[in-house]
């Protein structure tokens, strides 16, 4: 079976700001993702992991190479790839409910159907009772829950997450990880969304992903690709198991080298 998502020779360089050579943000990268898999991409900041994700989303274009989703080349953004951003991107003029309905509305679904679908996902992310709140009336964690519900309600084939919990405090972040993982594990193994989750938090990468990809310092390339030897569903207590700490230690070493390399490059 051919892989669900194929990234082939994708690189990205940015035009120089004033003369000089273009900056290479991402080296030619190959990566395949199987359907229903949860893959986390781990790397120091500025390593091009977000760039890679944005290219898969269609929000950015590769300088070379191509991305295929289910055999079709990605040319631009689309509803088949839902995304949750690090910044709070709820539409401030829409209530929680209407934010969740945004994509459904765009598809022209009848209002009653929209509301029914939205209500289900609002319940899933634990925001029942907040349907008529505006984003500014919500905490950061609640805003990201809404953003998750908004992406899921649209029924995408893939979920792209760009450090979605990065701006949240530590406790909220852990709860959000469990929430997302719980939703993902709640589906039958063959019905689970394919998730690509970018983070710089090692705990997060290991706890959530069935597979962790480590990227090098800028210009980014894939340095390491590991299966996480912990079966789903996972309880948060797996974070203290030997399998978890062992993998974490290995990844920590790898990421540390890259962070040091990144800092050395800045001097």
């Amino acid at each position, binding site marked *: 079976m051919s892989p669900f998502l194929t990234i082939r020779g994708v690189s990205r360089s940015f035009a120089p700001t004033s003369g000089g050579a273009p900056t290479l943000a991402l080296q030619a990268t190959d990566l395949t993702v199987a359907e229903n898999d949860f893959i986390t991409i781990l790397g120091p900041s500025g390593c091009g992991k977000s760039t890679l994700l944005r290219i898969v*989303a*269609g*929000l950015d274009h590769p300088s070379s190479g191509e991305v295929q989703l289910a055999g079709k080349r990605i040319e*631009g*953004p*689309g*509803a088949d*790839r*839902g*995304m949750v*951003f690090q*910044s709070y*991107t709820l*539409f*401030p*003029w*829409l209530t929680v409910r209407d934010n969740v309905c*945004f*994509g459904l*509305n*765009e*598809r022209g679904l009848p209002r009653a159907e929209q509301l029914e679908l939205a209500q289900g996902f609002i319940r899933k992310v634990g925001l029942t009772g907040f349907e008529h709140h*505006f984003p*500014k*009336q919500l905490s950061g964690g609640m805003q990201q829950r809404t*953003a998750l519900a*908004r*992406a899921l309600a*649209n029924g995408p084939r893939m979920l*792209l997450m760009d450090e979605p919990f990065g701006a949240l405090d530590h406790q909220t972040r852990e709860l959000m990880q469990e929430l997302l993982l719980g939703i993902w594990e709640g589906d039958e193994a063959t019905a689970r969304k394919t998730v690509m989750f970018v983070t710089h938090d090692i705990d997060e990468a290991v706890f959530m992903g069935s597979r962790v990809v480590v990227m090098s310092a800028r210009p980014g390339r894939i340095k390491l690709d590991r299966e996480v030897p912990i079966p789903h569903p996972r309880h948060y207590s797996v974070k203290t198991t030997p399998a978890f700490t062992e993998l974490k230690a290995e990844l920590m070493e790898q990421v540390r080298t890259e962070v040091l390399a990144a800092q050395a490059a800045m001097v």
Partner: protein
Amino acid sequence: MKPLQPVAHGTRVVLGVTFFILFTALWAGVTFGGIVSKTFLADPVQMLRSGWVLLTEMGFAKDIGMTVWRVLGGFALATLAALPLGVAMGAYKPVEAFFEPFVSFARYLPASAFIPLLILWAGIGEAQKLSVIFIGSFFQLVLMIAVVVGNTRRDLVEAAYTLGASDAGIVRRVLIPGAAPEIFEILRMVLGWAWTYVIVAELIGASSGIGHMITDSQALLATDQIIFGIIVIGVIGLVSDLGFKWANRRLFPWALLGR
């Protein structure tokens, strides 16, 4: 007093009203006290008395109506034309590149300087008054609307794309609703400017309107009537301002959150 410390609502109203009272008291002081001659400045009581006469005996209400109609008419036309162009310029950069330099130039053309030309082209009827207000507000509106629309947060646009929005959907469902409260605020500001243009238009070649009454009163040295006319404009401006603010709060409650 500490910088930026908010003030209670009741105190705010009291302070605002107090200044009006002090201002009027000062005016009454210098006029009744004989410091300023009545020829140059009428006293407040005299002003109110001739205002009453103007309204009851000289049909000033009709003048007010004419002026309001002209402002609102010219401003509505300018808004109707400026909204689509401003949104298109904010949303589509080639459209902006095409119109922006000219509009930037045109906005510095003083509307009142067009009056002689407009009289030549449109006569001294209503079309000329509406045109002055149109010229005075249209270019300002276009530029300001374009800036607000163009400043839409990029991440909101990207989020909408990943939710399957089309290009037209981005304009209709992200750029316009996101910019709406600020566009409303722009309308409020520019309407204030439109009021100054209408009076200028009415000072020259008009047979009705507040500006026309003011020119007539000038010939008679009736400072009481002139001041009454000016105050009427101020009051109408204040009322329309409050109306806009009220409507803004009602229409866009979300924009006021977290301020």
